[in-house]
Each structure stands twice: as C-alpha cells, then as structure tokens.
C-alpha cells in the first residue's frame, strides 16, 4: 500500500466529481496541479552520522528497504558521501519503488575531539540541508562526552535552528550487556531490557545537559534484528519539518522484526496482541445502502454513483469488494496503483 499522502491524493481523482463549486474541468485541473506539486516535491534528505561499523547502512536498508551494499568506510575519510537511494520494487504491495531518498553518510567523531575538528566544517556545510539528522551510536558504548561536546558546538552554537532536526539512534541493542538476546523470540532478555531502558534515559539526559532545548529522546534499536525500528522512525518523522513529514513516510518501508521470531512463539503472541475485532463483517447484496453509509456516501452525488456501480456487480464480485475495506475504498475512490478492482 502506498503512503498516506499518496493514497489521500489519489482519492482526490475519484472524489473530484462530488465537489460542487467548480466546473468539472477546473476540478480536474486543480487535482492535476496538486499531483504535479507532489511529484515535484524534493525527496527527503537524511543526514546520518556515525562511526564506520556502527550500522548506518544497515539502518538505512532496514528503514527504507534501500538495498544498499553494506561496506565499512574508512573513518579517516574527510568528505561526506552523498548517495541517492532508490528502493527496489516492493514485490508484496506495489509495482514501483517507494521513491528517492537523499542520504548524506557522515563520518562519526569517535573518541577524539581532533577528529571532530577535522570534520567540523564538513558537518556545518551538510547539516543545514537535512530534513532529519540521525546520529547513530552503539547502544553499549557509554563514551559519549565527545558527542556531547560536538552536538553542543554544532546545534547549540553554530546551527541552533537545526536542533529540531536532530535524532539519536542507539544501534545494536541486541549486543548490549549481558549479550544474551533471546534469539528464538527476537527480544531482549530481562537484564538487557533493563539496560536498554537505562541507556535511553542516560543518553537522553546527557544530550539535554548539552542541549537543554532539545526535545527528542534517544531510541535503542537494532537494525540487524529489526528491533524497535518503528520507534526509531517515529522519532525521525517528528524531527522533520511539519509540512515535509509525509514525504518521509511516503518512503517508509520497515524491515519486520517478526520475520525473525520463532513461528510458534509468534502465533501465540499475535493472539495475545490481537486488538478486539471491529472491522466490517462480510455483507450481502441486501446491505448495499448500509455499506455506503459506513463510508459517508449515502446522501451525496458520489454516493449515488457508487451505489449504482455496486449494484451493477455480480453477487460474487460484490462480496469480494464490499467485504474488504481496502478493496471497497479503492473501488469507490480509485486504486492508486491503477489496477482494476
């Protein structure tokens, strides 16, 4: 399924006929202008900072299904690596990629301020271009005084307007002490979980000591075991300028941690986690008007048109479409992938 914005906008195409104050031609022109503006919107720009080997590329791949080759870069490289990342075809859902990301892969500062001084001008040149800055640090590593000093210099003194863009991901949560990750369930042990929570709290506090105006929270995650990728993405999307957040979500394609959970455990856990059923039941042809009422179309022009279209379906087709909310919405508002429903 495409991103929220794409689905909403594609819905405009069908809904265009129901608006009353413009000619059909003008409505169509407005929709086309909006679609063009959407297509022309620049891709999200992500600046990712971290030491070689901390898992930056794996993180990008696990958040955006970008399929980038994982390779260690020399920590002494004195330039940023900018790459346009285009996700591969999503075989499960769509025939196309989720779209372009602009990624700046920045060297970390390690444990020496001399490294930061060497990179400083590079940081100051690249950071203002970011929609979001993701600073990746190993969850296990407690040596963060240089990070604290560097962010204070960059975001506290030089680029304070970029402070809202800053996020911290503490990667390799699965490796945190005592390194006894529950591989069958793909979850941390009790002691690891306790340590991870403490790390998030401590790291966040240290950053806030340096940057009292920073409102984010450090997130522990594991790109490798796909642990808490959603939490990391949520932090990131909040950091993006408000009118650009949908652009990042449009590219979201998270690797699923459940793929790495033992199937027996997963089945039992899914039963526990299942929300109470509230979706529509499979209707019969007699329920056509009620079906339309549930989508608020009963009393408008579009509703009458949709009703006529639904009534023209065979019982089998009606059951297939009206019994599946996504299919029904696509039937009523148009399928953004252009398939026939």
């Amino acid at each position: 399924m495409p991103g929220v914005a794409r689905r909403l906008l594609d819905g405009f195409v069908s809904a265009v006929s129901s608006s009353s104050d413009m000619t059909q031609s003008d409505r169509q022109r407005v929709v086309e202008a909006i679609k063009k503006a959407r297509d022309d919107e620049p891709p999200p720009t992500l600046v990712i900072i971290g030491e070689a080997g901390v898992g930056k590329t794996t993180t990008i791949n696990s958040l955006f299904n970008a399929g980038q080759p994982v390779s260690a870069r020399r920590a002494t490289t004195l330039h940023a690596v900018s790459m346009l990342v285009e996700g591969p075809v999503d075989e499960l859902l769509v025939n196309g990629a989720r779209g372009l990301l602009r990624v700046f892969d920045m060297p970390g500062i390690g444990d020496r301020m001399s490294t930061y001084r060497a990179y400083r001008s590079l940081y100051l040149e690249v950071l203002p271009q970011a929609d979001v800055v993701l600073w990746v640090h190993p969850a296990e590593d407690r040596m963060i005084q240089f990070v604290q000093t560097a962010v204070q210099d960059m975001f506290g003194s030089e680029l304070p307007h970029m402070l809202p863009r800053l996020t911290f991901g503490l990667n390799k949560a699965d490796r945190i002490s005592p390194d006894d990750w529950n591989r069958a369930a793909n979850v941390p042990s009790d002691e690891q979980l306790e340590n991870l929570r403490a790390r998030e709290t401590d790291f966040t506090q240290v950053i806030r000591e340096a940057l009292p105006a920073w409102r984010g929270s450090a997130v522990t995650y594991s790109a490798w075991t796909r642990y808490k990728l959603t939490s990391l993405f949520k932090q990131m999307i909040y950091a993006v300028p408000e009118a650009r957040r949908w652009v990042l979500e449009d590219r979201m394609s998270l690797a699923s941690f459940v793929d790495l959970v033992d199937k027996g455990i997963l089945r039992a856990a899914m039963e526990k986690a299942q929300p109470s059923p509230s979706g529509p039941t499979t209707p019969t042809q007699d329920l056509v008007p009620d079906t339309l009422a549930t989508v608020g179309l009963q009393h408008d022009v579009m509703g009458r048109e949709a009703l006529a279209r639904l009534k023209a379906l065979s019982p089998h087709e009606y059951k297939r479409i009206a019994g599946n909310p996504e299919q029904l919405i696509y039937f009523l508002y148009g399928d953004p992938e252009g398939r026939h429903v």
Partner: protein
Amino acid sequence: MSDVRPDPGEYDDALDRVAELLRKNREELLEIERISADSFRLWLDKLVQQVSESLGIAAATVRAFVDDVWAILGNAKSKFKASYREAYEKSRQINRS
C-alpha cells in the same frame, strides 16, 4: 534465525514481550500514519494559493474544494479505521528474506 525455544520458565515472558512489541509496533505505525496525514494536509493548505494563482481560480474556491474532498476521504477512512489500518500496518512492514 534459530528455532531453539527458550526454557519453559522463560517461555511466557518471551511471549509477553513479543506481544507487547507487536502492540507497540501497531500503535506507533498508527501514530506515524496520523503524523503523515496531518503533514500532508498542511502541505496542501500551503499549496492552495500557488494553485489558485497558477490556474486563475479563486483561492477560496480551491480551498473549499480541498476541504470538501478531504472531508469525504477522512470520513471514509475513519469508518473503516480498524481494517483499513490493519492493511496499512501490514503494508508498511516488509518481509525480507
């Protein structure tokens, strides 16, 4: 990934932890979806003036049209919230081999 199960004494804890992760994952995806929809609406609102000027249609008319369509789509989505979101969540978690 290993198919070795945890010790019987740990099994229930592991189950609870996975269930909790699933729940949290679902909630966060819904939040991300909401953030994205709000953002897109903000972007649309900013676009109204530009579209109005480029097409020569009154901004108020374009805005009313956007409001109208947004209300229809929002109503449709909210009515099918549970199942629609379930499909959304599923679609945003990509299985990789």
